[in-house]
């Protein structure tokens, strides 16, 4: 039971980490806290649903859905955020709220206000018994996917010119442009990656929830934002640490708190966040930003 709770905790932490990273990548480059990030998850969910309804085999539908997440993020940047380039953090934040609300209403009126059922294949929701302990496959897959995605991102950021440029852009975007690296391409790549990460998180989320609804992005994006703030807004390692920390804390509190106190779980978690920020106002692993012109 304890082993399972720990796996549950890491699994949720992994999903938060993916989401927080998506927020952090975009924030580190253009100073946008994208609250419409959650709607990328919703879009991914509907893409998966649509593909499955059209009879696309499951593995292919997953690939379609992930691509949709990435492309939706790029489209969002192109349509909503590019015209706002260079605006203040507050203006960008408000723009993202507007995009988020607009998409929610579009989903509600265009698809359905009602959650749509998506059932993942049986093997994803089954359990395996090893000796005395029964472990669920879902959380294990979730952890594996999160870790692979983190590893993939690390390799991309370290080994490719675009990845290096993105790290550089988080420090000083203007100078990256002076190197002849197009700003649009760096930003589009950042959005694409954040979209892919939102899509992966969405799939893990949906596997756990069995349905997709127009408002499903709200809670996760809020959690991701909290995770990103704990870690240090705009810091990628911070986002990962913040995500895991938040997920683990939530699940473990839920597991150990007596039922009378359980309703206060979110309050306890948020108090802990405030405490962290009082001690380390810039987050656990602050982002390095030299200057932004």
């Amino acid at each position, binding site marked *: 039971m304890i082993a399972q709770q720990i796996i549950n905790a890491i699994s949720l932490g992994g999903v938060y980490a993916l989401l927080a990273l998506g927020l952090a990548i975009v924030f580190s480059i253009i100073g946008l806290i994208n609250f419409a990030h959650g709607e990328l998850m919703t879009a991914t969910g509907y893409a998966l649903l649509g593909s499955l309804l059209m009879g696309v085999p499951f593995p292919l539908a997953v690939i379609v859905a992930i691509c949709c997440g990435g492309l939706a993020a790029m489209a969002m940047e192109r349509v909503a955020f590019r015209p706002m380039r260079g605006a203040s953090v507050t203006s960008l934040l408000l723009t993202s709220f507007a995009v988020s609300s607009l998409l929610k209403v579009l989903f509600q009126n265009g698809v359905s206000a009602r959650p749509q059922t998506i059932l993942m294949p049986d093997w994803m929701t089954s359990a395996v018994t090893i000796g005395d302990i029964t472990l669920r496959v879902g959380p294990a897959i979730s952890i594996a996917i999160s870790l692979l995605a983190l590893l993939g991102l690390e390799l991309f950021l370290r080994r490719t010119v675009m990845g*290096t440029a993105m790290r550089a852009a988080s*420090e*000083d975007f203007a100078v990256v*442009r002076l*190197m002849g690296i197009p700003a649009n391409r760096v930003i589009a790549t950042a959005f694409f990656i954040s979209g892919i990460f939102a899509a992966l998180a969405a799939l893990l989320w949906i596997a756990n929830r069995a349905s997709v609804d127009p408002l499903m992005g709200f809670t996760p994006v809020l959690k991701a934002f909290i995770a990103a703030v704990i870690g240090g807004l705009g810091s990628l390692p911070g986002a990962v640490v913040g995500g895991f920390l938040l997920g683990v804390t939530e699940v473990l509190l839920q597991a150990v708190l007596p039922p009378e106190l359980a309703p206060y779980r979110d309050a306890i978690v948020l108090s802990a966040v405030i405490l962290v920020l009082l001690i380390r106002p810039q987050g656990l692993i602050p982002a390095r930003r030299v200057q932004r012109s």
Partner: protein
Amino acid sequence: MLSVSSLSVVYGEVEAVSRVDFALEKGQVLALVGANGAGKSSTLGAIAGLVRPAGGAIRLDGRDIAGLPAEQIARMGVALVPEGRRIFQSLTVAENLRLGGAVHQSAADLKERMAEMLDLFPILRRYFQNKGGNLSGGEQQMLAIARALMSRPRLLLLDEPSLGLAPQVIDAVFDLIEQLKHSGLTILLVEQNVSLALDVAEHAVVLANGAVALTGPAAELANSDLVRQAYLGG
């Protein structure tokens, strides 16, 4: 190679650069001097594409590049070493140089240029895998120049290369500029240290309050009363 005509840069209500004209021949070193706030850096920013000019033309080999995005101007062979160096502190020396060479098409080209730079700046070879932020000020300035040279620019823009450096380090930086000049590189140098600038440059433009106050061969300007009184301490 570069001709700036009637260039104006405006920030809000303030006109930082006002109808500035000058030209720079291939292989020449031109110094842009003047007091703080005279409009030197804004002029460089406009040429590099970081600042959008309010008016005027900037011609690079006859083509007007005013208002083009910075990345496009960089790809046309203009490299700026920004004021304050602005190297990527969390990136290694190697990564800084790699980004400087991002415009190269082939890996071989990049490798060759990287080797040339490490020969020119042995100190960078020593700290190749160190974070840029761990380098000293002078080393960072060398890295910033090397990073700009990685793209094999036709025109190098240097913004205040002596700023904040110890005297012997400044000497090293200006020795390097001298060396680059002899290799035939076209350089536009912005420098507050007027005597150093006039020493290395062939021609100079003196800016005051955003407008051209004087222009001419560097040696002549160094002897002019105005420059002596205003910038060379008598």
